[in-house]
C-alpha cells in the first residue's frame, strides 16, 4: 500500500469571491479507502469535482496513475479508470436501471452508430451481450436484480444511490469516488452500503475515495481520513487520530471534549 494511485498537488479553486479550495494536497494509496470529511460547504464535493474533471482547478495538479490529468475532459478520465457517484442523484432518469449501468460500459464498448444498428451483421450483438453479462454480475453483487427493468427515475432514493454505485462500478474503475453514499439511508441500508464498499475495495481491488458525514461509517471502514474546513486541508491521518483531534471534534462533530463516550459515538451514527 505504498504506491499512490492519486496525487493531488496544491489544488486551489475559487468561484468569484468564494474560495472553495485553497492549496489542498494529498495522496491516496492504491487499494485503500480514503475518506474526506468536513463541515457543509467545506469544499469536499468541489475537491471530487476537480479530481473527476467537472471543475478545472485554478492552480495545482491532479495526478492519476502517474499521469497528469489536470487538463483532461471528464470522459477521458473515465477512460483511464475513474468512476464516481454524486451527492445529488445524477442517474439517467428515463432509462431502465440496466441501461443506466450499461452506460457505464460505454468506453469499453466498440460498436458505434454505424455498426451498432447493423446489430446482427456486425459483432455488436455479441459485444453487447458480453458486456451485459458483466453488468449482470454487478447487479447481482449489489442485489438490485429485482429492479433491473425499472425506470431509474421512479425508484426510491436509497435504491437510486445503489444504482449509481453500480453504474460507477460498470466503468471498471481503478479509483472510485463516492459523494455521500449513505445519505438518506437508514441504519440497515448503511450497513449494506458499507459492506458493498468494503467488498468492492477488497474483492475488486478498487481504491475508494469517499465523502461521508456518518462518522460511524467513516471510522469503521476507512484507512485514512482527511478533514477539509473552509476549503483548506485541516489535517489527515488514521481515523482514530482524526477523531481525537479537538478541533475536529468541536468544529465538525460538535462534541465537547468532556462528553466523549461511547454512547455519544453511537448517536452520531
Amino acid at each position, binding site marked *: 500500500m505504498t504506491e499512490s494511485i492519486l496525487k493531488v498537488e496544491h489544488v486551489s479553486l475559487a468561484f468569484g469571491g468564494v474560495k472553495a479550495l485553497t492549496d489542498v494536497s494529498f495522496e491516496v494509496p492504491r487499494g485503500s479507502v480514503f475518506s474526506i470529511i468536513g463541515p457543509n460547504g467545506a469544499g469536499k*464535493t468541489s475537491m471530487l*469535482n476537480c479530481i473527476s474533471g*467537472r471543475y478545472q482547478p485554478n492552480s495545482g495538479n491532479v495526478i492519476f496513475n502517474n499521469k497528469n490529468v489536470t487538463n483532461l475532459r471528464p470522459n477521458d478520465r473515465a477512460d483511464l479508470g475513474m468512476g464516481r457517484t*454524486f*451527492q*445529488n442523484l*445524477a442517474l439517467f432518469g428515463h432509462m431502465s436501471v440496466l441501461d443506466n449501468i450499461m452506460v457505464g460500459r460505454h468506453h469499453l464498448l466498440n460498436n458505434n452508430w454505424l455498426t451498432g444498428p447493423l446489430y446482427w451483421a456486425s459483432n455488436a450483438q455479441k459485444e453487447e451481450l458480453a458486456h451485459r453479462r458483466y453488468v449482470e454480475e454487478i447487479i447481482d453483487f449489489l442485489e438490485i436484480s429485482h429492479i433491473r427493468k425499472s425506470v431509474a427515475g421512479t425508484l426510491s432514493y436509497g435504491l437510486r444511490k445503489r444504482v449509481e454505485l453500480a453504474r460507477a462500478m460498470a466503468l471498471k474503475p481503478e479509483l472510485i469516488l463516492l459523494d455521500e453514499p449513505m445519505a438518506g439511508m437508514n441504519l440497515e441500508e448503511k450497513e449494506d452500503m458499507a459492506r458493498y464498499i468494503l467488498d468492492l475495495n477488497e474483492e475488486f481491488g478498487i481504491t475508494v475515495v469517499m465523502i461521508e458525514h456518518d462518522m460511524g461509517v467513516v471510522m469503521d471502514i476507512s484507512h485514512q481520513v482527511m478533514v477539509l474546513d473552509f476549503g483548506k486541508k485541516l489535517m489527515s491521518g488514521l481515523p482514530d487520530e482524526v477523531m481525537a483531534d479537538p478541533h475536529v471534534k468541536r468544529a465538525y462533530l460538535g462534541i465537547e471534549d468532556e462528553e466523549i463516550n461511547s454512547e455519544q459515538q453511537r448517536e452520531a451514527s
Partner: protein
Amino acid sequence: MNFELLTQLIINGLIVGLLYGVIGMCFVLVYKSTQIVNFAQGEFLLIGAWVCWASLIYLELPFFLGFILSLVFMAGFGVLLQMIVLRPMIGEPIISVIMVTIGLSIFFQALMKWIFGVSPQSYPQVFDDQSISLLGLNIEMAYLMSTVIALIIMVAFYLFFKHSKHGLAMRATAFDQQVSQSLGISVKHVFAMSWGIAATVSATAGIVLGMVNGVSDSLSIMGIKVFPAVILGGLDSIVGAIVGGIIIGVLENVAEFFDSQYLHIGNMYDIAPFYVLLIILWFKPYGLFGTKDIERI
C-alpha cells in the same frame, strides 16, 4: 458610401426594433413564468389587431376607445385561454405544452380567416398626420405611439419582476411547478396572470402593426420573426428582449443597406439577422442578458 441612406435606415431599424422588443417581451413574460415558448404569440397579435379593427369599423368607436376595449378584451381572452386550454396542461412536459400552443396557433389562424376573411384591411385614419419627419426620415405616427407604450410597459415589467412577490412567484413557477405549489404559490393564478398580460401587450403591438401595414392573417408571422430578437437578448430577460429587438431591427436595415448598395445578394434583410444570431450565440450561448443554467453536480 451613402451616409444619408444609412442614417435613415438605422433610425428606421431603431423604431421597428423597439416594436420587436415589445412583442419579444410577451414571449419573455410567458417564458419566465411558465417555461413555455408561445408559438401562438403571432395569433395574439392578429386577434388583437382584428378586434380593434372591428370595433372601429363595425362599432364605429373612436380610436382610443376601441384600443382600450381591445386591450380589455385581450386580457380576458388570455386568461380564459389559459383556463380552458393551458390549465389542464399544468405539470405536463413542457414540450407538450409548447405543442399545444402550436395547436392554438393553427386554430386561431383558421378562425380569424373565417371570421374576418383573407383580404387585408386597413385601419381608418387615426392621427391627423399619418407620419412625421425624423432626421429626414418619414415615420408613421403609430410607431411613435408604440415607442411610448413600449417604454412604459418595459419599466412596468422591470419593476414588477424586481420588486413584487408575484414576480418572484412567476420565476419560481417557471423553475419548478411542484415546489412552487408546495410553497403555496397558485400555479394557476401565475399562469393566468402571465397569459393575460402577454395577450394584452401583444394586442398593443398587433394594433400598431395593423395601423402601419394593415391587418391580414399573415400578420401572425411576427410571432416567428421576433424569435431571433428574444434569443439574442436572452429568453428570460425583459431588458434583453428590448435590446435584442433593437439590434435585430437595426441589423435588418444595415443588412439591407449593404445588400442594396454593394452586395446585391438579395434577401439579406430577412436572412442576415439569422446569420448574426448564430454568430452571437456562439460567443454568448445564453444571449446577451439571459441567465445561465446552473451546471452543477
